[in-house]
């Protein structure tokens, strides 16, 4: 295992030191060692927007803290939910007096810790409402959407909700737009190689050379099928079939597209994939209004990529284009 680490048990702590040192203008620590908040004034007078999740998905989650994006984030060990207390502390760090929206992904641990944290926060009179992302179309059939995992689509949900919060909307409205965003979002991943949690020292799943795991989750969770590796064009077709039919997306729809690498796949290959995704959308008569291609939501050094589509109405379109600054996503508004 050739990694840039010290004690494998300290990777999260060590990385957080670097994160706050590298972004003093953007990130600030808090009293809770696993909670990072936006530098500066934060959410004063508006709804706070929070998320949290395991480490190893960088730039998610902490990389989306910043003006016009998240106010605070709770950080877990690698691939493990943050503690209830960390979520609670993130809520408090993000509180600007108008309540907090906690927008997170559908994983057993996160669900329970957030639920507990909401209870803990309520004891102190802090109103927290939640939206749980379940955009991974490959993780359960359509009639069991409640079981689906949250993946890269979370980023688009954070973006729209935070942009609306920045406009001064109340908690209910912010929650509604987050829910609307994720309800209009579908994702699917393809895994091409496994990854190793430093503290484990070896991968806890495997993908054979020459095969691909269609529908893989962000921690290597098995997907729909293991198939022989296919050309990029065929990968794109498989992924798009899965998500287009699921919402379903239809001719005339406006969409945002996010192609994210899972970590180790070269960026040029993400653009190869995007070229085919764009072709398929053009053929389907679907208009692309926002495009994001890069390593937005990773799984350590896994190879592979995910594709996310969000159907946009005028509100979501406007909110995605609003100014924001963070490690993972900066929108200048000049485009």
């Amino acid at each position, binding site marked *: 295992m050739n990694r840039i680490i010290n004690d494998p048990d300290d990777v999260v702590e060590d990385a957080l030191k670097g994160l706050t040192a590298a972004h003093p203008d953007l990130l600030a620590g808090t009293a809770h060692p696993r909670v990072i908040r936006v530098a500066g004034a934060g959410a004063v007078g508006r709804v706070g927007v929070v998320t949290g999740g*395991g480490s190893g998905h960088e730039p998610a989650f902490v990389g989306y803290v910043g003006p016009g994006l998240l106010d605070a984030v709770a950080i*877990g*060990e690698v691939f*493990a*939910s*943050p*503690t*209830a*207390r*960390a979520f609670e502390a993130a809520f408090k760090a993000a509180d600007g007096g108008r309540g907090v929206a906690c927008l997170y992904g559908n994983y*057993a*641990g996160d669900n*329970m*810790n957030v*639920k*507990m944290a909401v209870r*803990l926060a309520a004891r102190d009179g802090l109103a927290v409402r939640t939206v749980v992302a379940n955009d991974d179309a490959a993780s359960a059939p359509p009639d069991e959407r409640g079981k689906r995992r949250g993946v890269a689509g979370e980023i688009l949900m954070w973006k729209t909700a935070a942009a609306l919060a920045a406009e001064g909307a109340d908690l209910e409205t912010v929650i509604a737009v987050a829910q609307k965003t994720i309800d209009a979002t579908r994702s699917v991943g393809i895994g091409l190689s496994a990854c190793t949690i430093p503290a484990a020292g070896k991968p*806890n799943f495997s993908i054979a050379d020459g095969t691909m795991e269609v529908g893989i989750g962000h921690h290597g*969770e*098995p997907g729909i099928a293991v198939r022989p590796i296919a050309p990029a064009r065929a990968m794109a077709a498989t992924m798009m079939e899965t998500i287009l039919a699921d919402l379903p997306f239809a001719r005339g729809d406006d969409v945002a597209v996010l192609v994210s690498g899972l970590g180790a796949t070269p960026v040029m290959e993400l653009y190869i994939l995007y070229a085919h995704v764009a072709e398929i959308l053009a053929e389907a008569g679907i208009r692309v209004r926002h495009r994001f291609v890069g390593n937005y939501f990773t799984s350590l050094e896994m190879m592979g990529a995910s594709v996310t589509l969000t159907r946009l109405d005028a509100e979501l379109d406007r909110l995605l284009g609003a100014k924001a600054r963070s490690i993972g996503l900066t929108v200048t508004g000049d485009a």
Partner: protein
Amino acid sequence: MSDTIDLAAAGPILHDMIKVIVDNAALLNDLDGAVGDGDHGVNMSKGFRRTGQKLDAAPTGLGEGFGVLAETLLDEIGGSMGPLYGSFFLDMSTFLRGRTTLDRDGFAAMLRAGVAAVVDLGEGRLGDKSLVDVLVPARDAFDAAAGRGEDFSACLGSLDDAAERGFASTRDLVAKIGRASRLGERSRGHLDAGAASCRMLLHALADGLRRQLDD
């Protein structure tokens, strides 16, 4: 023989509960390793060891001790175990708040609160191969024994037996919840790790209380 526990005097029972988890961490890891990610012992002993240190520094009664344990689990253990065991002990601690003694029916009510918290949070059902397969039979056995008019100590005995049977029952179950549920049929034939830790904790608690009652 007594019918009522002095909660202040019962504080040290927590040390037995902590010890059984810390001593059996490797066993819990092994059970989890067969169908999960092999870290249940690590997760549990991390929170319990830390609680032990806090209680050594500032001993408490049973109710406050449950509170310290709950806070520590919620503070330091992410994943599922922190909130599940955390809310179990938090709600039992909340029930005990303001009380100095605990009788049979009080214990029943306390346990019901704790189990309800776990079920409410985790949405696990009997037969899902989890903590719940120990907690629910244990609670029900205690209630049933109380319904038959048995005394506190005897009710704890019923609880202890039921917890053991509940734990054993997990071997033949297919996991419907948690990480092992991904394995489907392949999860059958293995004892559940969370059920094991839960069985150990209930045994240590029942045993400690009975010793005090029987004194």
